């Protein structure tokens, strides 16, 4: 199987879908002539031309609305946000127009648009540029929210997103763009709502996705090596729809659950997961769910502060130890 970078897998998904369906196009800031701010769309202008790989002015509300309108008449736009921090300039389009059109029109209009780009704290980008938007968008009925962790998932889930008839929020992470992994060639699609067990274990379930999942896997490795604690890492891959049965199955087995996210704890995904796990696994739990999230403050610029604010391997490991009453 070919080994691709995460960004190459995304590019392959988009290119394959564009070859397959002339109604698919890519639009966003610097996606064409600059080859993408993070080189995800490198070479796509050359292959598909300026009609289908389209640079925009810095007008997020305008071009995301364009994507929604075009989707209402059957096109399948891929709208790239340079980062999802900038999607907040287009918040009304993304949370009002995209997810509510089908419902408000009694099913007459569907909106098969994909909004994709970076989410999560980068390297000292400070408060406005460091949003983890998954909780904001997963909150909204009518949106689907996807967070791939591996290059194969990047490809398989993006292809599914493009073919999906609903608006999809597709969250990537800058630190993961260079990650490599085996990616199946050709028509490889991964279904929404199916979690992946990234690591098996019997002692504690960790639910984590994207950047947080990579941190969780490192913590799981460390915990096994240092203390013999075997964690089961469940990656939901899509936060809406959520594969609750997979999480419940795992927690019933381990009796403990830790959630990891780069977003905020207050009304975060971890809060929702904790509520669900408590509802569905109450009698199987030997402790309450323990959440790991960014500290509840705007992201600071200063490196030593940022390192404490964003979940670290150590913080996840400590959370697991706390959850399973480990006294080492």
């Amino acid at each position, binding site marked *: 199987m070919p080994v691709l970078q995460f960004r190459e897998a995304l590019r392959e998904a988009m290119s394959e879908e564009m070859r397959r369906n002339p109604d698919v196009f890519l639009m966003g800031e610097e996606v064409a*002539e600059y080859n993408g701010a993070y080189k995800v769309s490198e070479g796509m202008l050359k292959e598909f031309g300026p009609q289908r790989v389209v640079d925009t002015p*810095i007008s*997020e509300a*305008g071009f995301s609305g364009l994507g929604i309108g075009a989707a209402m008449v059957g096109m399948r736009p891929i709208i790239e946000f340079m980062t999802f921090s900038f999607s907040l300039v287009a918040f009304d389009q993304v949370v009002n127009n995209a997810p509510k059109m089908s419902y408000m029109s009694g099913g007459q209009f569907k909106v098969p648009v994909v909004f994709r780009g970076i989410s999560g704290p980068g390297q000292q980008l*400070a408060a*406005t540029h460091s949003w983890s938007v998954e909780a904001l968008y997963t909150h909204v009925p009518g949106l689907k929210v996807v967070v791939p962790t591996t290059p194969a998932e990047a490809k398989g889930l993006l292809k599914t997103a493009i073919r999906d008839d609903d608006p999809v929020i597709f969250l990537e992470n800058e630190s993961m763009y260079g990650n490599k992994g085996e990616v199946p060639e050709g028509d490889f699609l991964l279904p929404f709502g199916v979690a992946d067990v990234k690591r098996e274990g019997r002692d504690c379930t960790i639910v984590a996705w994207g950047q947080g999942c990579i941190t969780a896997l490192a913590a799981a490795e460390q915990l096994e090596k240092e203390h013999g604690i075997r964690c089961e890492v469940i990656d939901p891959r899509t936060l809406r729809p959520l594969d609750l049965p997979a999480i419940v199955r795992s927690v019933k087995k381990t009796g403990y659950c830790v959630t990891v996210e780069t977003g905020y704890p207050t009304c975060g995904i971890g809060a929702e997961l904790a509520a669900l796990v408590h509802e569905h696994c109450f009698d199987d739990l030997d402790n309450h769910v323990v959440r790991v999230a960014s*500290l509840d403050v705007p992201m600071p*610029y200063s490196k030593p502060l940022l390192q404490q604010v964003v979940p670290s391997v150590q913080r996840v490991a400590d959370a697991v130890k706390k959850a399973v009453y480990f006294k080492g």
Partner: protein
Amino acid sequence: MTTISTSTSTPKAEPTTTQLMDWYRQMSVIRQFEVKCAQSYQQQKIGGFCHLYVGQEAVAVGSIAATRPQDYVITAYRDHGHAIARGMEMTPLFAELYGKASGCSRGKGGSMHFFDAEKNFFGGHAIVGGHIPLAIGLGWAAKYRKEDRVTLCYFGDGAINQGSFHEALNLAGIHKLPCIFMVENNGYAMGTHLHRSSAVTDLKLRTGDAYGIPGKEVDGMDCIAMYQMMRDGIEYCRSGNGSLFLEVKTYRYRGHSMSDPQKYRTKEEVAKYQDHDPIGRLEKLLREKKLLDDGKVAAMNDEIHAAVEKAHEEADGAAFPTTEDIWKDVYAMPFGPYLAR
């Protein structure tokens, strides 16, 4: 349409030689500061995004020279030059860039978020176009309280395509707010040339008829022209005429940020603008006036170099914020991290 008094019939404000020397010095300080930033970035003392002002120095220096301390200044993320021109010391600026507690934003903001309340410097804003509505808030407050203050709002040519720009300018037009909006047109928004981002490239046309705000054009590579335009502009706003929009023609010599391969332009294009370098131009004039010669230029540059190095060293040696600082300033009236105590 109202006109502002920059026609040839009214005498232009002639700067004194002291002013000219001061501007030359300020522009040189900014340039050397930015060169040091580039070095510190390479050494990973600076993180995140860092956008240098090299080439655009005359815009901030010439315009801020015409302000009074009570006037308000607000800008985008390419903010080092404006901060220095506004009189902020270099040490807290370097300290901010290095993420130190003594930084002008306590290490919380970084390069894109310089602030100084005492200097009426309202930031440093990183979301393109996001600060333009803030500028009309500043202008609104000044007008409401009948205070004699003008707000200077700077932004890039990329920002004029944001809804926030248009909404803010319309509001400023309705309420005749004492605000000067300056688009620092350096030709590019990241890698996108103005021709590809704006349906109309004569930017001074983008406000007048639409929002009742007169638009003017000024050579942003000429510190004196900047100053003269701004003197008249501030006078125009102070006299209750409402807002003003300036298309400032300028150019950035460096990449958009520190990681920009700059494939969208040629070296020749950059060199062409460097021929009209704002510092070089003023230096030529000052040499003609016999205020500068080789020796004086060298001495001044050495002196600035020493000041930059000193500020850098002070900042480099300063302390990082502490873990407790993480929780400070989230709220003005704190109640703890999340739950009410």
